[in-house]
């Protein structure tokens, strides 16, 4: 068996184990664990989309909190002023995230490297400033409050998502869909072309690829994921807050991608699980969650750049090699 096939099998086994654990979690534990499960799922959707940009296309954006917030406020406003039905709200959230990313991306995509990162940071903070200041529409620093979690009604079908468990299952289903889409994108010609742009943008241009347009497409897709995650958070917490657009929130999908592994499909999802779990555990014992996470981050950057998934894969490979050799 080739090592590539081996690592694929390892990744698959890991993914099923993670999926099973994720779904089983609320069935085994209480309400708070279910709530945390939803948070993991939302962060994983955010991160999975984001990593199509960072891990796949090689672009480091510091503005995705802005698209998250665009989705959140889109759903919040839709729910408060148009209809409380979650489906149009979520569709609108997704579209708002994509649209915001399209506008911002149009301006940022021409900048290279550090300038791209800084420009996205500035636009993200611009969204933060707008949300903060447009008090009449967004509620300013109080945010949008009082969003209901209405049932999903499809003709005669009524899906009540007010309960934590039902909402958790909805979030997991949407995460599964997000992962499936990311998976398809990664193994498509489009995904290969994005990887080519990451590896060598100049060569990609000379291979006949309109690099800017592809980068923009990846940017918009990741923005749509962010918008969806933002909309879901409003349903979860029943409010939208300007801090969602703040750059410290934009750092979260970067951190979970890195934690889980930049170069694997499941990296950001695994990273989200680890991130939320770590935060809960550390906060139980000490106030110093940021310190702990900073140290974890250092360890990953200096020693485990493949992230958790990369380390597990390397471990599986080593074990197999050990078994193969007598």
């Amino acid at each position: 068996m080739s090592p590539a096939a081996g690592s694929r099998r390892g990744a698959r086994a890991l993914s099923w184990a993670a999926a099973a654990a994720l779904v089983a979690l609320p069935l085994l534990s209480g309400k708070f664990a279910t709530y945390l499960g939803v948070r993991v799922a939302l962060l994983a959707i955010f991160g999975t989309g984001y990593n199509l940009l960072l891990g796949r296309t090689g672009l480091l954006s510091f503005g995705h909190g802005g698209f998250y917030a665009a989705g959140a406020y889109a759903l919040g406003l839709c729910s408060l002023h148009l209809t409380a039905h979650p489906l149009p709200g979520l569709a609108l959230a997704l579209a708002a995230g994509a649209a915001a990313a399209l506008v911002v991306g149009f301006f940022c995509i021409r900048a290279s490297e550090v300038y791209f990162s800084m420009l996205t940071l500035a636009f993200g903070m611009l969204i933060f400033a707008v949300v903060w200041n447009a008090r009449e529409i967004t509620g300013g620093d109080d945010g949008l409050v009082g969003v209901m979690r209405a049932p999903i009604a499809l003709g005669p079908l009524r899906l009540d998502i007010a309960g934590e468990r039902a909402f958790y299952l909805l979030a997991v289903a949407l995460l599964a869909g997000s992962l499936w889409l990311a998976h398809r994108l990664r193994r498509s010609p489009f995904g290969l072309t994005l990887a080519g742009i990451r590896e060598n943008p100049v060569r990609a241009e000379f291979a006949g690829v309109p690099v800017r347009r592809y980068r923009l497409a990846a940017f918009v897709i990741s923005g749509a994921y962010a918008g969806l995650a933002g909309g879901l958070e409003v349903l979860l917490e029943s409010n939208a807050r300007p801090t969602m657009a703040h750059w410290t929130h934009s750092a979260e999908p970067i951190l979970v991608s890195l934690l889980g592994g930049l170069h694997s499909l499941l990296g950001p999802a695994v990273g989200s699980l680890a991130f939320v779990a770590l935060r809960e555990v550390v906060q139980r014992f000490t106030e110093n969650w940021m310190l702990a996470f900073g140290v974890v981050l250092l360890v990953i950057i200096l020693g485990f750049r493949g992230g958790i998934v990369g380390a597990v894969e390397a471990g599986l490979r080593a074990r197999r090699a050990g078994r193969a050799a007598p």
Partner: protein
Amino acid sequence: MSAPLLEVRGLSNHFGSVCTARDLSLSFAEGELTSVIGPNGAGKSTFINLLTGHLPVQAGQVLFRGRDVTGLAVHQRVRLGMGRSFQIANVFPGLTVLENVLIPALALAGRAGRPLSRISGEREAREQAQGVLSRVGLGAEAERPASALSHGDRRLLEVAVALASRPALLFLDEPTAGMNPVERTRLLEGIRALSAGGQTTFVLVEHDMDVVFALSARVVVLHRGELLCDGPPERVRADARVREVYLGHEVEEAAP
């Protein structure tokens, strides 16, 4: 004889106060293997960068098959049939050899943007990519990561990536730099065969005089951004000015 494959009219370029191209006008005919030579700083790389769109043209015109391409983006020129390789091996290091060649093949077929179909199902592009790999002698390496190739093989792969766009005109920027003699011979034979095949017209930028005079039907000499001499190898070799500014320089260097 129809319009030349590529025509350059009055091309000029400056970097600050340094002139890297001064009112260059010349054309490349289909099927004629041409080498561009000149001492360091003659503006050879700039010349290629200008023609392929890697650098914006400050003054002058570039016509490809009679069509003005001066304002076109790089990828648009590639689609029209202009390709290039780089001085430093310039491939997609983290991808496999086959994937390296698939990217231009998919882009050429207009299928690179398909978001939901599978790579494994892109039969035509895969066949084309495999064909290009075997033509340059990398057929057996298809599944290896490009970063694992030897330096010479990586240069070959770069030529393969360029060829996969099916260029009518292909610029090779010092293709044999850093190669060992065996690899060099292999690559030159390949270029000769491909050139004779007639689908691609090659323009080489070269340092190595043996390569230039062995392969070229025509030699263009640049010096400080200006066209110094242009003609068949024998005539260029005999040209007094070329001997003075270029070969003389070489001879001096070569003398112990």
